[in-house]
């Protein structure tokens, strides 16, 4: 059961990373050169949601 859960979370993680083009070097490079705000907005959205879900669940991740 644990393996299945880890596999499922990993699959969603991998699919979302790929779909968000976080696997595309050009997207990362444009973000690091401040040509495109997507990378920074993506991380901002991620951190904010993480804080929100962590508080809602009263379980701190990490």
């Amino acid at each position: 059961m644990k393996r299945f859960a880890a596999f499922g979370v990993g699959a969603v993680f991998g699919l979302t990373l790929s779909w968000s083009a976080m696997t595309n070097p050009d997207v990362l490079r444009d973000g690091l050169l401040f040509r495109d705000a997507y990378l920074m907005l993506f991380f901002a959205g991620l951190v904010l949601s993480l804080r929100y879900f962590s508080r809602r669940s009263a379980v701190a991740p990490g």
Partner: protein
Amino acid sequence: MNEQLAWYIGGPVLGLCVVALRWLLNERLGATRAWADAVALRFSVHGWLLIGLIVGGVVFGLAGSSVDGYGWLTDTFTGSAQWVIVPILALSGALIGYGARLAGGCTSGNGLSGNAVLSPSSLVATGTFFGTAIVVSFVIEALI
């Protein structure tokens, strides 16, 4: 799936993945540890996380997306200079692995899991590797 997922969807979904792993397994999401377990042939929960991660990427690829090289790297080094890509990728991978282990986590371990609980070491590690990546990107842009 040909359209890039909106940042306000992709970011929160990754955040949910971190929380879900904590809820379900009381584990911290970290790709470096998963790779370290795989290299050491330890088939832990993290090993299954890594397999899932790879499968998720493959599913996306099979759903219509195409892999067309390594962007700037394969655009810059073409023809007889193409061999340069292999040592660059190998060296980069080794440096990333070493640095991530030294820092106690990579973008997912420190950047996601650690920063979510405002861990000071994770904040410093994330600031360091993001700052370095930005500086190096600008240096490469200026030189090549």
